[in-house]
């Protein structure tokens, strides 16, 4: 029996696009000095709230790496009126979630709450920031949990690769070189007094910013915020300053031995321009062409031609940034390949980078990438959470509120040559630090033979 056929039609042409722009937030300041960015998104029934606290990891006292993370986690462990269990129960009763995490630029507390229970959610958030109980026994438990977590991280190839890359790139004196949530030695030394002292030194409304996005129809926002977050008080303080980011990007290879691994986790990185640099838009465009999706240059070969991997991505991720332009982003290529394909995959990666430098991107690559990056924006920012996250990133990196909106305009205007220049500058084959987490006894010799830098094996 022959296969029945269908009627084919020519590929359809697009209709007329509906104009869309990245939402512009409005600002206000509460009486306690808290800066607020708000953005009404009708229909978004889950309201997203992010609070940025000026408590960067670099502010952790020497030897107490992890105290910011423990404070972040302790925000969920009760207030002046609620025990830890009661606080968790009240959040859940409001249908809300509250999570906090500490990163190099600041400590962020994120609340998601249905619009119908916004006031209750904001009250709990405000209480956590204003009067966290920081109970000694719960902090002792959080310390023990963090020590357990470190053991789990050691067993995870992606986490282990990141830890090794940061330790290679950054000077040991720079907080960037060490795990964000602390190591076993430093975490063991953290107690309630240390967490309390870090809270007292760095958590105050006058240096904090709150971002709120969602369906705020019918909400008197200034009044609602004053009656909740407005109750949080604290001494005035100057915002902290950041130190410039530098890194050692001499080309070299570090193999983290993980005997018996069936795949090698690959993380290749260095540092480069952050969002303050005029080349940022060109850099993200060129980086997308290199490794943004499975039709980009890396996956076209490593996945779709060779089948070495489920997928490899290239990306730029800001580390620390400030308005003076002393910040930098991590530029990296990340993925995992089956053990036997480790050296061949690296060889292909270097060939792809050298070809890119020699021949540049094509106009059609640039065109497709721009169409994707600009076209996908309404989709990417459909939810309140995604808008709030980007607005918070802008605040954290000391960028103007219309930064993301302007990036979309810049992307559309960039030439192929500008994108090529930026991505070639971002990924010079001789200035890349390669971390491989895998079975050294199988992969080390072949990797040495590639000539992509001196190879060190660590366990």
């Amino acid at each position, binding site marked *: 029996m022959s296969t*029945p056929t*269908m009627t084919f039609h020519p*590929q*359809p042409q*697009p*209709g007329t*696009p*509906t104009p*869309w722009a990245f939402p512009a937030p409005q600002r206000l300041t509460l009486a306690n000095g808290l800066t607020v960015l708000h953005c009404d998104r*009708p*229909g*978004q*029934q*889950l309201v997203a709230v992010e609070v940025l606290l000026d408590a960067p990891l670099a502010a952790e006292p020497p030897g107490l790496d992890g105290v910011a993370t423990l404070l972040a986690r302790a925000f*969920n462990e009760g207030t002046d009126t609620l025990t830890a*269990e009661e606080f*968790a*129960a009240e959040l*859940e*009763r*409001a*249908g*809300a*979630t509250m999570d906090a995490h500490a990163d190099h630029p600041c400590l962020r507390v994120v609340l*998601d709450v249905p619009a119908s*229970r916004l006031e209750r959610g904001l009250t709990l958030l405000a209480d956590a920031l204003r009067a966290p109980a920081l109970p000694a026994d*719960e902090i002792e*438990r959080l310390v*023990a*949990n963090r020590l*357990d977590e470190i*053991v*789990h991280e050691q067993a995870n190839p992606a986490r282990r690769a990141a830890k090794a890359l940061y330790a290679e790139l950054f000077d040991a004196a720079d907080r960037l070189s060490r795990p964000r949530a602390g190591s076993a030695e430093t975490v063991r030394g953290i107690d309630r007094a240390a967490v309390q002292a870090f809270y007292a030194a760095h958590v105050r409304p006058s240096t904090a910013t709150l971002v709120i996005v969602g369906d705020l*129809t019918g909400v008197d926002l200034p009044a609602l915020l004053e009656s909740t977050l407005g109750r949080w008080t604290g001494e005035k303080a100057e915002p902290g300053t950041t130190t410039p980011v530098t890194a050692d990007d001499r080309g070299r290879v570090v193999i983290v031995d993980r*005997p*018996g691994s*069936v*795949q090698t986790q690959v993380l290749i990185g260095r540092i480069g321009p952050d969002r303050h640099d005029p080349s940022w838009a060109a850099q993200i465009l060129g980086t997308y062409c290199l490794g943004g999706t*499975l*039709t980009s240059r890396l996956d*076209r070969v490593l996945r*779709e*031609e*060779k*089948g070495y*991997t*489920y997928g490899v991505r290239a990306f730029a991720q800001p580390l620390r940034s400030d308005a003076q332009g002393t910040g930098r982003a991590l530029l990296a290529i990340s993925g995992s*390949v*089956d053990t036997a394909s480790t050296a061949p995959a690296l060889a292909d990666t270097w060939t792809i980078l050298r070809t890119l430098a020699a021949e540049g991107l094509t106009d059609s690559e640039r065109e*497709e990438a721009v*169409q*994707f990056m600009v*076209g*996908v*924006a*309404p*989709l990417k920012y*459909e*939810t*309140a959470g995604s808008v709030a996250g980007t607005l918070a990133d802008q605040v954290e990196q000391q960028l103007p509120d219309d930064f993301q909106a302007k990036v979309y305009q810049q992307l559309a205007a960039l030439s192929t040559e500008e994108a090529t220049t930026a991505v070639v500058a971002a990924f010079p084959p001789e200035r890349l630090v390669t971390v491989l987490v895998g079975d050294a006894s199988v992969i080390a010799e072949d990797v040495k033979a590639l000539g992509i830098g001196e190879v060190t094996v660590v366990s």
Partner: protein
Amino acid sequence: MANPAAEATSTGGTGAPIAITEHRLANGLRVVLSEDHLTPVAAVCLWYDVGSRHEVKGRTGLAHLFEHLMFQGSANVSGNGHFELVQGAGGSLNGTTSFERTNYFETMPAHQLELALWLEADRMGSLLAALDETSMENQRDVVKNERRQRYDNVPYGTALEKLTALAYPEGHPYHHTPIGSMADLDAATLADAQEFFRTYYAPNNAVLSVVGDIDLEQTIAWVEKYFGSIPEHHGKQPPRDGTLPDTMGGELREELHEEVPSRALMSAYRLPHDGTREADAADLALTVLGSGESSRLYNRLVRRDRTAVSAGFGLLRLAGAPSLGWLDVKSSGEATIAQIDQAIDEELARFAADGPTAEELERAQAQIEREWLDRLTTVAGRADELCRYAVLFGDPKLVNGALGRVLDVTADEVRAVAAARLRPDNRAVLVYEPTTDATETEEDAA
């Protein structure tokens, strides 16, 4: 059409009903449309009624491998053209395979909707014109690397696979997971893939939903134009019978000595089928017992006993076989599995006797409501749910009562399902004991 979200503020956060229009083409393709003009985007979602439960012995993983092949081109689309065209139009796309279905989705800027429909129709009607040995070999390698990355090279990575194999007996259609075994992935042939397509990828075995900033008349006209001439075919056999007794009748336990960072206890309880009131009651029971930081097991194991670093229950809802209640506990420090076992059994017995308190039930319902809002907040999430209710339960309109049905469940119903199902003699248990022996690896990973 009323703007669904604009009314939603007055409904206490539960959202207004989703406006739904249904059609059926002459070739059997079911079409579900829903209009929402808040954002200029449109989601296309296509569910094929085929999953790993339809696979036969020796060919596990074929449904998922086939899903990859659906992105390798068709009569009018070059290899990778599907990705290139959708992304080049500013859209995002993917596909996933589960026990019960395979789904494909594109979310597009609204003015590019027609392209997504054309692409889905082209591969539904003409995939075999492009499918060849080269893409078969390549995607086999990609899927094997997916398996290594997600399951074989991470601690506890094969737990789901092992526990599923314990929970559903040998020969049961849900005994194996969608990723399949390395040996079966190696054994699959191009002829298998072609036969799979001819059997399952028929318009009469699929539901198409389109949600977002669309014109209903124009959209159904496009659907008719592109999909209408694809011939129906009827070679599909129903999946093997998944009927099992309500309970397992005894605990099944396996202890593994592997190179993992800590002791762990994972178990799967046999629960009511998805789509029943009892499944909603079970969802609430698992939420009270093990979802979030105010749950009973979190409070007992993590906060009070301090024997665990994490403890959580999840519900794997299944319509064609009993659902699974999924418990995952990672131990803390030197705590033993015996201590954890005992605490869990005490908490389950207490819950079976007393049920949830009024406050616990209220919290669990609020959490489920939030998760539901989260799922329906995007056009893609809504499109997927419409397909789910159409494929698994025959009626996409059931989506509108789904949350109300959960909120209607009483404390005594929650207690009753816990008493009947959350018991030691109705579970499969996997225990991990860490070993430092670095030479021990998965046998299928060599």
